[in-house]
Structure formats: C-alpha cells, structure tokens
C-alpha cells in the first residue's frame, strides 16, 4: 500500500507551481489525486471526484484532507435571491472580461446599474452577456474567471443602492 504524506503533496504542489502545467492527475494504487491551478479551466470535475464518498482513499485522514483540498473548487454558492447576490442566469463558463487579457467588465467598488454587464457566460462557444439585474456597488466577485458555473450559482455580491 502506498503511504502518501502531507510533505509529498507539498512537494507536488511546488512541482506544479514551477511548471507550465495547469493540472496534474496522479493515480497510485487506491489513491487518486487531482491538482489544478486556481483559475484554470476545469477540464476534469475535480470536485466531483472529491465528493465521491465511497472512493477508497487509504492512508491517514490528514493526508486525505490535504490531498483533496488543492483540487477542490468551492462548493457553488446558490444565490439566496435576496437581491444582493447576482446568480448565473444559465450554466456555462463564466468570464470576467470580453476576451483574454482585456479589462474586466467590473471591479470591486464599481457602481453598477441593473443593466450593467458584469461578465459573459460561454455555452459551447456561444457568449451570453450577464446583466447585474440590480443597482448598487460591487462588494465581492465570487465566481472565478474561467469557472464553470451552474444555473443559479452566485457570481458576484452587490451592496444594493438605497431606493
């Protein structure tokens, strides 16, 4: 049986950090490890793999947590509908800017109105612009650039303007 320690993971992280690779997958015996650089397109549903409770990950618990942590994308925050969170109107890949390297549509602190475009969601190469749907000030950008978002997932938080 393969023993995998926290140090091994840290070594691997350093390795991928210093490389040009965005993603690393490792399978040793019963252990499966997927590492992905933050912000890179999720080519593989790492969090899906992580959520698979019955997947046998042997070794100490700490190792398991350490192994899966870097590969996990945050569980989607489902918009509460309270008006301060802007939900994804459709499933797709969320982009902060109209094209790679361009200025983002919005930044934290920006004052926006209901029809301000806050990003685009790509579905099979079709770009759909996303409007804020609310007046106010951007307080937080939740969904990462290039992240696959599901329908209803929170994209940004807004401090709504006083009526």
């Amino acid at each position, binding site marked *: 049986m393969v023993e995998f320690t926290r140090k091994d993971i840290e070594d691997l992280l350093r390795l991928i950090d210093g490389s040009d690779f965005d993603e690393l997958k490792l399978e040793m015996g019963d252990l499966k490890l997927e590492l992905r650089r933050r912000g890179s397109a999720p080519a593989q549903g*790492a969090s899906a793999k992580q959520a698979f409770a019955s997947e046998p990950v042997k070794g100490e618990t700490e190792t398991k947590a350490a192994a899966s942590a870097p590969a996990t994308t945050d569980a989607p925050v489902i918009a509460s509908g309270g008006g301060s969170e802007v939900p994804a109107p*459709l499933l797709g890949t969320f982009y902060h800017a109209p094209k790679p390297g361009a200025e983002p549509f919005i930044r934290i602190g920006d004052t926006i109105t209901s029809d301000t475009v806050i990003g685009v969601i790509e579905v099979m190469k079709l770009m759909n612009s996303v409007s804020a749907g609310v007046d106010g000030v951007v307080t937080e950008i939740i969904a990462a650039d290039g992240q696959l978002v599901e329908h209803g997932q929170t994209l940004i938080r807004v401090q709504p303007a006083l009526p």
Partner: protein
Amino acid sequence: MTAIKRIFIANRGEIAVRIIRTCRALGIETVLGVSEADRESLGARLATRTVCLGPSPAAESYLKVPTIVHAAIGFGCDAVHPGYGFLSENRALAEACVENGLIFIGPDPENLEAVGDKLTARGHAEAAGVPLIPGASGATVADSDELAAEIGFPMLIKAVAGGGGRGMKRVDRREDLAAQIDLAISEAAAAFGDGRIYVERYVTIGRHVEVQIISDGETVLHAGERDCSVQRRYQKVVEEAPAPRLPHKLRSGLLDAAVRFARHIRYRSLGTVEFLVDVEREEFYFLEMNARIQVEHPVTEATTGLDLVEFQIAIAEGRPLWIGQQDIRTSGHAIECRLNAEDPENNFMPSPGRITQAWFPSLPGLRVDTHMQPGAMIPPFYDSMVAKLIAWGETREEAIEVMRRALKVCQLDGVKTNARLHEAIMNDAEFRRGGVDTAYLAGLLSAVAEGEKSG
C-alpha cells in the same frame, strides 16, 4: 474500446436513480444535470455530483443540448446517458457528443436516423422482410378488386392530408368498397383540398407486443418480448413479460423479425422493436423501433436476470457482447404497474405535490424503481410517473398475487395516485385470464364508471 469512468446523466426521476444504481455497481461516477425543480430530488442526492442546468421547464433545462454537452465536458465526463424521453433519441445530442469526444450511451446518429421517422423505418422494415400492415396509397375505385384481395376486411380509408382520426372511414364489406373510396376521395378533396387517399388493413383486436434487442453491431440478441397492451390513450399502464397466451408461431415470428430488423440497419445499442399483433388474423405488423432504454425494461430484467443498463454502457464503450442467445434464458413471469401521481376520479388530472409518506418495503418477488421518499416534491413540469412496481413469480398467477400484495402494502401519501386502478386491473377476470387487447383498459374504466353510477 474506451472504459467509461464518469457519466453525465441527462434525465431525472426514477430513471436517473436507476442509471445511478448500475453506475455505482460498476464503479462509474455520475454527474446528474437537474432543473431548478429537481435540486433536492433523490437522484440529485445520490449522484456523485449534481449540477443545475437551468429553470424548471424542460425546454430550459433537460432539453438544452449545448448546456448538457458543456456541463458534461466541464465536469470531466466521458459519456452522456440520456435515459428515456427528453433527448434520448435526439440526433442533435448524439452528434454533439460525437463532435466533442463524448460517448453517447445509445445508438449512433445513423441508427437514430434509420428509426427516427416512421416512413424511413417502414422502408427498412420492408427491405428486411419484416411484415408491415398491408396498405396502399393513391387508391382509386378501379383498384377495388385488387385492394380487397390484398388487404381484406375490415379496411380503413384515410385521407393522406388528414390526421388525428380526421377523414377516416372503416369499410367492412366488399360490396361497399367502391362507393366508399369514391366518397372518401371527394370528401378529402373538399375538406383538405387534397383528394389522395391511403387504404390499410384495419385491426379490430390488437395487442402491443415489443421485443428487447441487445446488439453490439455484430451480435444481435433478443431478450424476449413484453406485452404492453394495457394502455390508456396510448400511454402504457401495465406491462408484462412474457406476453400471455400468445401463440407460439406468433412469438417466434416476432422475435425473429425484431432481430432481422436490428441486423438490417446494423443497429448497435439497446433497442426495442414494437409490433401490433392482429389477434383475429394471427399476424403481426411492425410499428416502430425505439432506440433507448424503455420505461418497462425491468420486466425483461426480472425474467432474464440481466442488467440492461450495464449492457447499454458496455456496448457504448465498444465492448463486444460477452453472452450469446443461448445464455439468455427467461424464467417465470413479471408484471410492471406504473404508479402515476394523477387522479383517476378526475379524468386522470396530474396531482403534483409534496410526498408526506413513501413506503415500499421489500416483499418476496417485488422490485420498486422510484425516486420517491418522504418530503419529495413532485413538480408539475414533467410526466406524472412516480414509481414502478415490478412483481415476479414462477407463474403469471403468482406474479399477479405478488402485485396485489404490493399494492395493498405500499404507501404513497401526499398526492393522488392511480394505485386503485392497478388493484382493479389485477382483480379483473379478463386481465387475469391474460392476453387482453389495447382497447381493454378503456372498457374497464367505463365499466367501473358505470358500476359506480348504478351502485
């Protein structure tokens, strides 16, 4: 051959749960695409990962091909299982899967094309030597003798431009034929501006019998037939395997014809060839082929011991079939009752709502495929089927007895269901005798309604 590791399930309800069951057994991960209404469904809780595709109406979620393909790729799936209904026989999805390196768990686009429209499928059936209902188009009065000899009586005259029962005439006697053709042509011309007519044999007593096909493209196997004659408005209500009281000649004839049809179109996947059995003439005619897993597949599984979803996945992976026809042995009899959330006393109106209690204990011989559990919500957006009870027995009588017990024991509260209708069918002498036709259920329903009025 590509081993599938993670399947995107583009469906909902009990079939999503059914697919997850086999995936778990095979060690395959599942990503379930749901609509907003199904976020809390049993399938959503059981899948390795669940993702919301869109709002509740199916057109904005379950029917969105680009969204499904994007999600499947984005979550690292290598295959898409479409279930039944929705996009299960949709060429656009099958093609989008091929273009994007995903395995579509179903037949290839060419197969879907071959069976997708009735006319093309009929052409293939004819070429494969599979019997079609005898008929002729463009008939005139001058053809009367020939038609009478080839088609026989009763006969149906249809307006080519008609549809949905409009412009149809039934002719029972030879001496009426010429006059009726004349009349039909002039009526069609007046009503539709198109005087062309189509004549076909009319089946007075018909049964719906279908054959389960398992094919890897080289080896074509059948897993016996299913009788789905208990229908209400063309919706199947009770199905069983094998077909009761079906003459041997008919049974072997339609099993052979189904295999011949699948082989002719080089079909590769699970599929079902449907036939209309003409009881009086002791003949059968090809209706269509369904290129998907069917709702009623469990009765075949119960009598053969096969896991059809496992075969469907293996074939999609490109694995050659590991069994032969001699390995498929049927034993006993199985019956399926579709439990729907609907109100039989109110013209079968759908009855959506919150389930307060769901209890389907295991009984000897009973299998239950359902996504119901206490607290489950039946949304008003989709079909109303909430559970399938599948009873197995050594004999048909035993299977009926298992089903009667199951209907007494099982409980589903919070919505109205058709459970009492199923009890009435299981207790009905005509059904118990076996071999009812497609008009049977309508007759039973009006008899029950009459009985209630007079009683």
